[in-house]
C-alpha cells in the first residue's frame, strides 16, 4: 500500500533543527528525518530509544562467563595437563583470552544486532524518499493522512523556516 508523504527539504542542519522543533511543538508527528550525518537534537527529540548498549553489556557478560567456564572445563575437568607443577586452574592467565575474546564477541554480536534492528543488511533495497539526503540535503518527512487539514499550515511553517523545497510524494 502506498502512502502520501509531505516532504520538507532543508539546506543545512541549523534550519532543519529549527523547523523540526517548531513542527513538534505544534503537536504534529514527524514520520522520519533523513540527514547526511547524525544530528543529536533530532535523535533526541524523535523519542526513539535504542537499547543497543544494554544488549552489548549482556553479550559481554555472557561471553565472559562462557569463556572462563569453557577454559575451566578444558584445562581442569576434561584433560588436565601438568605444566611445570602449576595449578590446573591458572585463572590469571585465563583472563587474557577472556578479555580479548569477550571484546570480539561483543563486537560481532552488537554488529548483528545493529544490522537486524536498524535494518541495514546486505541485499537490502534502499527505500529512498529523497535521493539528496545522503549528500547535502536535510529532509523531514510527514505522513499526509495523519496531517489531514494541517497540511497547509505545516507547509507554510516549513517555508517560513527556510525550507528550500516542500513537496508531496507517494511511497511505500
Amino acid at each position, binding site marked *: 500500500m502506498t502512502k502520501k508523504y509531505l516532504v520538507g527539504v532543508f539546506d543545512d542542519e541549523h534550519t532543519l533543527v529549527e523547523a523540526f522543533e517548531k513542527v513538534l511543538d505544534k503537536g504534529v508527528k514527524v514520520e522520519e528525518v533523513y540527514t547526511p550525518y547524525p544530528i543529536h*537534537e533530532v535523535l533526541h527529540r524523535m523519542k526513539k530509544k535504542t537499547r*543497543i548498549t544494554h544488549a552489548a553489556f549482556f553479550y559481554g557478560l555472557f561471553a565472559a562467563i562462557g569463556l572462563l567456564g569453557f577454559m575451566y572445563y578444558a584445562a581442569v575437568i576434561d*584433560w588436565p595437563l601438568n605444566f611445570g607443577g602449576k595449578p590446573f586452574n591458572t585463572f590469571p592467565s585465563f583472563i587474557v583470552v577472556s578479555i580479548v575474546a569477550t*571484546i*570480539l564477541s561483543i563486537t560481532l554480536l552488537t554488529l548483528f544486532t545493529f*544490522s537486524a534492528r*536498524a535494518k541495514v543488511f*546486505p541485499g537490502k533495497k*534502499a527505500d529512498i524518499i529523497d535521493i539528496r539526503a545522503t549528500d547535502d540535503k536535510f529532509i523531514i518527512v510527514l505522513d499526509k493522512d495523519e496531517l489531514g487539514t494541517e497540511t497547509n499550515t505545516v507547509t507554510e511553517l516549513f517555508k517560513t523556516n527556510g525550507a528550500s523545497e516542500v513537496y508531496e510524494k507517494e511511497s511505500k
Partner: protein
Amino acid sequence: MASMYKTEIRGKLISGDKSLGQISQDILRPIDAKTPRWWYAAMTMSLALFGWGLYCKYITVSQGIGTWGVNNTVAWGWEIVNFVWWIGIGHAGTAFSIFLLILRQKWRTAINRAAEAMTVVAVLCASLFPLLHMGRPWLFFFIFPYPNTRGPLWVNFNSPLFWDFVAISAYMLISASFWYFGMVPDFATIRDTTKSKIKKAIYGFFAFGWVGSSKEWLRYEGLSFVLGGIAAVLVVSVHSIVSTDFAVSVEPGWHTTIFPPYFVVGAIFSGFAMVLTLVTLMRKLYKMEDFITDSHVDAVCRILVFISLIMGTAYITEIFMAWYSGSEYEMYTFFKNRITGEYALQFWGMFTFNAIIPQLFWFKKVRSKLWVVFIISLLINWGMWFERFNIVVTSLSRDYLPANWAEYHPTWVEIGFFTGTIGMFAAGVLLFFRYIPMIAISEIKSVSKYDKPMPEPKIEHHD
C-alpha cells in the same frame, strides 16, 4: 550536549569554505575520475613485488623453513621481526579512530578512514608470518580450541603464543568491521550521487540499504559508542600480548616488565608514522589539501615528537636497568651485544631514527615542509623495523650458553617474503585510494559546521 568547545589553536578543519555537496564531490572525485597513469605504474610494481613474495612463500611451503636463515639458536628471525613490525603499523587505525575519538579530537575525521584501511591491510600482512612459520600452514586450525579426536587435546591457555593468536584474529575482525561500518553511509552517498549504473549497483549493494534516517543514525551512534568503548582496550591489549611473546620467556633482554608499555607505545609510534607517510602521499597525489590541511600534518607531527620522547626514555630505561640489575647476562646483551657488538648498526639505527631524528619536529619549519615530514616518517618506519630486529636477534643469538651462540643472516627467501608483504600492502592501499572514499564523508560533513560561525547558543539547559 549540543556543541563542543571551539578553540582557535588547530586552525580550520576544512579549508576552502566548502558546501556539503562540494565535500562529497571533492572526496569522491578520485572514484569517478579516470584512473591516473601513475596508479597503473605503482600497481604493477606492487603486484610484481607481491608475486615475488608469493613465489618465496611457495618455496617456503614446498621445501620447508630450512630455506630460511633461522637456526636452532636464532629460531625467530625476520619472520617475527616483520610480524611485530606490521602489527605495530596496524595500531594506527584503532589509535586514530578510538583514542582520538575519546579525546574528542575533531581533526581525526580527515585521517581515520585511511588509518583504518591501513590497519586492515597491515594486520593481514602480519598474520602471514606466523602462519608460514608454522611449517605446515594447512594445519593452522590446530590452534583453535575445538573438540577434536586427539584426546581431545586442548590448546595451552597459559601460552602467550595462543593469547597472541586470539588477540590478532580478534583485532583483525574488529578493525575490519569497524572500518566497514564506518563506510556504509559513504557508500550510500556514492550510490545516490554517481551517474554510472554499474557503480550505483555495486556501491548500492555495499551500502546495505542505508538511507540516513534518524532510526539508522540513532543505532549507528549506539554502535559506535559500544565499539569505540571496547576497542579502546584493544589498542593497549594487542601489543601488550605481542610483548608477552618475548617477556614471558627467560632470554636476556626480553625478560623485563617494561615490555608491554614499551611495545604499545612503539606500536602507536610506528602506526602514526605510517599514517603520516600515507596522508602526505594522499594529499599530494589526490590534491586533498583542503581536507588534510597543514594543521592536520602539524598535529600528527606533534604527537610523534611526544611519542618519540617516550621511546627514547624507554631505550635509556632498558639500558639503565641492565646496568642497575647487576646481572652480567643483561649487561652483556645491552652493552656488548646491542650497543657495541655485531648488531650495533641496528641498535644505533633504531636510536637515531626513533629517538633523535623525530626531535626535528620541534621546529615549525620542519613540520611545515611536506617532503621533510614525508622523509622523516619513512625513517621512523625504518627505525621501528630496526628496533624489532634489535630486540629479537641480539637476545637470541647470544644468550646464557656460549656453546649455543650462532649468527643469523636472512636468506633471499625470507627477504622475498618480506618485500612481498610490502607489495601486498602497497597494492591494498592503492585499491583503497582508487575504489573507496579515502576520507570519511559523513564524518567530515558533521564537523564542517565548526568552521562556520555558530548560531547563538541557547542557554536553556545544561546536561
